[in-house]
């Protein structure tokens, strides 16, 4: 049986029928429920078969699909157990802040539609017709953007996370420092130096962003599990069913994002890139190099730095609890230790590139 591998943007953005729309905390969101009450993700009518077709092509060509090792995923901080302990003791602010930041970061995923995409057909030595790569600006980035931030009169993941937070914690007050935490502080370092100047800044930016988003999306599995654990716990959640399902719905929506990104990056990996000085470089060298850089950054210093940034705020929030000393002690005792693996699996030397 032959599968078609070329789709129009309208097809990739099309949704199947739903019997009941998803209303989250009074906001109409994307997706909905079928006649059996099962959640159906938006814009997946053609997107899912399309991704399967592109993956099948890769498999037929003997090109592997990129896998991000799950053991590289840093643990959540505070952990689900620590977050529950805080909520049980009336310390809500850190959890509300964390959930709000998650919702905003999800929303920022929409910026993927603004990435400048160079003329890919001229860049690769091999043809790209009928690949995921060929559909990035033809519906894939746009579908991703709409899923994350909502579109027109429908909410997206940003609004769904907000709804889960508000349902579980009964419309909590959002801490005023959320955006300050989100923006962080600037260091002395300048912009990141290009890893592959020979492919030109536009292509490196696009591939770097895709590598970055792929890793974020894969690591988000930890965030979803954390969200489900915390928000569906009847001991602390006012709406465990609603809030837990909402996070599961977001989790279901994210799967096509991971799949199209790893497919498109695998397609790059299986090809040859024309450099700006009329030479060539293997796509695998570039993709592995970019993934190695992203994974190194996300697993080495960042979890520790983020933990340090949060510690002070957590201590301040705990200090207003009934018995702050004991709570802090119990909180610290639940601390998980995590050491990042020595290698990312994408080291240039390891790949012999």
């Amino acid at each position, binding site marked *: 049986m032959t599968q078609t591998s070329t789709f129009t943007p309208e097809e990739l953005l099309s949704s199947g029928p739903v019997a009941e729309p998803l209303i989250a905390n009074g*906001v*109409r969101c994307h997706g909905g429920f079928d006649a059996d009450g099962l959640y159906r993700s938006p814009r997946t009518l053609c997107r899912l078969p399309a991704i399967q077709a592109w993956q099948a092509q890769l498999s037929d060509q003997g090109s592997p699909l990129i896998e991000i090792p799950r053991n590289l995923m840093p643990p959540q901080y505070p952990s689900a157990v620590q977050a529950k302990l805080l909520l049980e003791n009336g310390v809500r602010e850190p959890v509300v802040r964390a959930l709000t*930041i998650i919702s*905003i*970061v999800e*929303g*920022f*995923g*929409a*910026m*993927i539609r*603004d*990435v400048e995409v160079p003329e890919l057909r001229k860049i690769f030595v091999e043809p790209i017709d009928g690949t995921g790569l060929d559909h990035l600006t033809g519906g894939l980035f746009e579908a991703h*953007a709409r899923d994350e*931030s*909502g*579109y*027109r*009169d*429908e*909410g*997206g993941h*940003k*609004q769904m996370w907000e709804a889960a937070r508000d349902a579980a914690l009964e419309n909590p007050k*959002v801490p*005023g*420092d*959320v*955006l*300050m*935490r*989100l*923006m*962080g*502080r*600037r*260091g*002395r370092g300048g912009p990141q130096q290009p890893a592959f100047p020979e492919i030109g800044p536009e292509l490196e*930016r696009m591939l770097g*962003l895709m590598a*970055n*988003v792929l890793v*974020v*999306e894969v690591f988000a599995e930890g965030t979803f599990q954390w969200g489900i654990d915390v928000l569906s716990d009847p001991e602390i959640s006012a709406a465990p069913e609603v809030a837990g399902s909402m996070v599961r719905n977001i989790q279901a929506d994210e799967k096509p994002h991971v799949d199209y990104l790893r497919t498109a990056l695998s397609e790059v990996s299986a090809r040859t890139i024309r450099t700006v000085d009329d030479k060539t470089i293997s796509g695998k060298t570039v993709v592995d190099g970019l993934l190695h850089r992203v994974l190194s*950054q*996300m697993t080495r210093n*960042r979890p520790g730095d*983020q933990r340090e940034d949060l510690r002070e705020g957590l201590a301040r929030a705990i200090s207003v609890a009934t018995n702050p000393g004991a709570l802090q002690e119990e909180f610290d005792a639940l601390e998980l230790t995590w050491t990042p693996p020595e290698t990312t699996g994408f080291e240039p030397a390891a790949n012999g590139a």
Partner: protein
Amino acid sequence: MVTRVRRSLKVGWNAAWLWGMYKIPSWGRRLRGIEISNEELSPTHQRAAARVLDLALDLRGVMIKLCQSVATRSDIFPKEFIEKLKQCHDAVPPKPFEQVRRMVESELGKPIEAVFSEFEPTPIASASLAQVHRARLIDGREVAVKVQYPDIEGIIRTDLGNMRRVCRVYEFFDPQPLPLLPLLVELTRHLRMELDFVREADCADRVRELFADDPHVKIPEIYREWSTTRVLTMELVSGIKITEKASMKEAGLAPAEVFQNLMYIYVRMILAAGFFHADPHPGNLFVTPTGEIVVLDFGLSKELPEGFGLGLFELMFSLATFNESAMVRAFTELGFRSKTGDTSTFVAIARRMVRRSDSGAFEGEFTEDMTEELFEAIREDPVAEVPSDFVLVARVFSLLSGIGHTLGSRANVLQAMSGGGPVASSNASR
């Protein structure tokens, strides 16, 4: 006294002239049963605006400030007024040095020579409320001394009193008056803030603290020992004016990067900290040869209500992501109020804004064009209350957008948010 009477008479006569200019032709038309359209009123608006501008340039002081305020309220005033009164800059001829000396000595309680080893008699800048002199403290530190005009408080009292009377008379006679009195109340509040130099020093310290570990920002030190409510002595910092693109390039700076740095500073103040420098005109912004942004003049600094930054972020975000329902919620969170009390007005405005955004006109940029579109939508489908903080913030981003265009860059609020921290390292980075 003579001056005050003269000012009162001028304000009164011009107000009466303006009122007649609008009303007399409308009476004639009404007698003939004809309504005047907005298009027909355009020449009248142009003449009236020119008259107001002439009056402001003649009387200066509060009149200049009032015109500057009107020029930011395109949600209330016709575009002819906005365009004309934008020309109202507050550069004024300086006061004689003897008056400055008397003010400094009376405020500091010492002869000028006891505090400063040098004090340049010619100011480096003069505006509607104060002028600034270069000087050197006895210990050798170079300073800038901002000195309030000796008679400014009296003039302001007279002008505000005159304008309040004019507004009351106008509201009495006009069945559907423009909301001028609230504008005057806001102006009075701003003037009070600008006239208190101790408050200005506090604001400068607060912003300096906000960027304490940011090597890209420079807020001059205030020397409290030599500062009072009317005299402000601060570290003298020199740099390249923020709009001088060629000088930046000569110094080896990339103008677009300088602008993104500037945007980050304002986005951090407005959206994240909820406290900001509200007067980013090019005379208050410099860049040092090492790329630090220097921010001056904290007279008009403002605390925003709790949640305002998040509301503004939601508005910008919903606009950039074409999400009408989120935009409607953001309007409510920001304090916009509709006359009918329902959200249909906001839905209509949101649709209009999203349509513009959809065509790629805004692309996450908080431009003058965007605020114009928003305020025009509001004028057409009148919203009872546009929060004054929103107007002030919109003005700030419009000014920044203008600077951005001069420097070949864009005032993209969302992109500026990703200038550092978790957003930069998330899927938002570009």
